[in-house]
């Protein structure tokens, strides 16, 4: 009897876990307005700052501006509509090539002039040609009207970060407006500032420690995890600004220059094209990752064709 009970408990637990969990694409969250303007920019003055995990003092001898938030779905939809209208991008099937692996996907695409290739070990050639910007796969928070040829952000996701966007798509957005993707150095300086506390640079944009209501990360118990489970979903840009939403209290988690979502929510593409590799670096961690990946020096990398519901970007100028 005891043995049967034990086995039954095990089975119940396992089956409970196997029960269909809502995917990020299956539920639409309520619209939440954090009150942060996604059109705003922050100024980062020239000067050195502690770079990387080991705090190497690194000079940045110019001032630059960087977006206060990630690019939102609404903003990206506007870009797609404008660039579709002027013929910069097209809609349809596009071929994706990574080494010997070739496949096609449907989405918005545009031309990329290619990159120098040195044939280093594991390096893949990025040839000139049409490149996927956004995929129409499940997870895209935009809808496309075939008749009017217009993209519209799903209203509830309008102020969430634009995701399912490749590096080519992120780069194209910034270049369309004569901006660019930040380099890793620019991104990190904007994220952690110049301050040293007890000899260490800030590990998180807001300070030395992370609390669950500082940022959107795996199992951070935010509002959206209640709907989507522990893996959660994106939160509106600038969500963690000290406001209280439906009883959920956030901490003001801006970086020293006033940037939001520099830790968690979505990984952000950066612009460096490092020699002998085709990977592009991603920064900031995401709602899928543990808090350790939210430390400002942590990076992730992927080929420029990669897209994901947990990857977005912001621009600099």
């Amino acid at each position, binding site marked *: 009897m005891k043995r049967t009970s034990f086995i039954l408990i095990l089975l119940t637990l396992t089956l409970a*876990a196997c029960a269909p969990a809502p995917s990020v694409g299956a539920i639409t969250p309520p619209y939440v307005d954090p009150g942060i303007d996604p059109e705003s920019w922050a100024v980062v003055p020239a000067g050195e700052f502690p770079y990387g995990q080991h705090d190497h003092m690194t000079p940045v001898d110019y001032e630059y501006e960087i977006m206060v938030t990630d690019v939102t779905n609404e903003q990206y939809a506007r870009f797609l509509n404008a660039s579709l209208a002027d013929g910069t991008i097209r809609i349809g099937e596009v071929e994706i090539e990574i080494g010997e692996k070739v496949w096609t996907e449907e989405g918005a695409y545009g031309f990329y002039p290619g990159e120098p290739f040195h044939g280093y070990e594991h390096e893949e050639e990025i040839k000139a040609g049409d490149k996927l910007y956004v995929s129409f796969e*499940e997870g895209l928070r935009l809808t496309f009207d075939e008749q009017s040829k217009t993209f519209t952000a799903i209203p509830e996701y309008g102020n969430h970060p634009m995701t399912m966007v490749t590096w080519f798509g992120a780069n194209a957005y910034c270049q369309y407006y004569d901006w660019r993707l930040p380099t890793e150095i620019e991104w990190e300086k904007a994220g952690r500032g110049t301050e040293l506390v007890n000899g*260490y640079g800030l590990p998180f944009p807001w300070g*030395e420690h992370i609390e669950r209501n500082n940022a959107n990360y795996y199992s951070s118990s935010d509002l959206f995890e209640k709907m989507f489970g522990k893996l959660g979903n994106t939160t509106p840009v600038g969500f963690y600004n000290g406001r209280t939403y439906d009883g959920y209290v956030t901490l003001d988690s801006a970086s020293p220059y006033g940037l939001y979502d520099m830790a968690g929510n979505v990984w952000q593409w950066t612009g460096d094209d490092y020699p002998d590799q085709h990977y592009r670096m991603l920064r900031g961690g995401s709602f899928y990752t543990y808090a350790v990946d939210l430390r400002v*020096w942590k990076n992730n990398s992927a080929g420029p064709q990669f897209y994901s519901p947990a990857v977005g970007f912001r621009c600099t100028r």
Partner: protein
Amino acid sequence: MQFIKVRLDYLFRSTRGLTLVAIAVVSIITAIFGTLSGPMVEWGIKDITVRLLGMKLIETEREGRIIMLYHTIAMTVLAIEVYFMTEMLPMKRHEQVMINGTITAGYLTAAIFGLLFAYWGHNFTYHGLFLAGQSLVFFAGILLLAALWPWKKEYRLEKGSPYAHTKSGIDLERTAFFVMALAALVSASFGAVTGSFWSNGHETFLAEDLIRVPHKTYLQKAIIGHLHIMLTLVAVAITLIVGRWMKFKGILHKIAMPLMIIGVIGTTTGALSVVWLEWAHTIIYVGSTFIMLAALMYVIYAWDSLIREGTAGIRKPNFFQKLGALLKDPLKFGPGWQMVFMNFTVSGVGIFMAVKLEEIFRVWPHREERVTLTGHWHILAALIATIILMYFADLSGLKGKARKWFGWLLIIMSDIAFGSATLFSMKRLFVDEINQQGIVNTTMLLIDMGLGILLIALAIFMIWRLYDLLQKKGHWALEYAAERRVNAEAELADQKRKLEELNAILKEVSE
């Protein structure tokens, strides 16, 4: 006072006692520091541990802390394997005492002061003692090499011995232990030399974070080679140990031991030549194939022995009778099974990754690749730990239902946990990110459940050993008495031999 003295004698002067202490140390380290990551963070346990124990955790030092934690556990596991070796391999009593004493002082010093340095603020005296402890472990390794020296006449095997040997009688199993220990010392030197550059051109890193960096420094490559080969050698050591436990001999033994020796030399050479050679992986693949074949020989032998023993009274046993015999004793079936299971969760995954690296794994983001990498070596380390526990449980005289429950829980729960961890790490093969919630929830639950039950089983086992230790005539007393008898007999034989030698010298001089 006598109560404490006798028990301390048992704990620090007998192989079983020393092993028990070391397993307790690993268990305590796991119990405390395991609360700082994974689901324990989600459940808020980490915060409680940090507050309660007054830990000083600085975010930028996390990787350094983890490396020191790995080293303290590794030193302790090495000590356990050395205790097993000094007990099961013929050597002089004073050699056994010297080796065990040195390595015990070494791993305890390294563990205590390493963890104090890493988790409770940076008192560099602690760091110095951490290094001193590791140096003692290294020195114990040199003593072990001297004791194992396979060319000694007294350790040669007679012609016709069922154990692998050369024409001149050199014991090839002993040679395999010797080569493994030598390789471990050379590999440890790679880590030590690189470590000496710490804060002097070398920075702390986790290997999995550098996997996609195209140009790694020599020091980084040395560390990557070091960590891979050390874990491999720990696995080789436990394979040789369980072979000895299962009385591995005969034709398979004669094939396996040369394979193991060549494999260890090849794999170690390959792993360490990563620093200079671009094609070092080819050497590693060849070397590890030899090791895996040697392990296969052991598994075939061990399982065949179990079946033969279990069906001894049956004239023509059928399949189910053979299967029943094989599964009768989980502690003896387990090591072989875990090695087979290792092929699916570690070696198989590694080979699949190597073959499909460009096509699959490098198309994924780095983080996905990193999860797979960390997953496969954590699984290997944990499987080795389960094999150690199986052997120690047998040494502890676990019998009847307790033996079956403990053995099967070790096997089933670890396999559920590590099988699920493998699925988790490879999930991108079956499901895209947006639909991964189900598989993540299921595999995470199974990992937590498997590991949780495994740790509870271990805790119960350790509590039983603690309770037993408090008894006047507990199992520990029997173990200690038996070991003292064996040691006394060995010492007596040694003294007799010495007396004969001295008499011969006196006779020679007087003539």
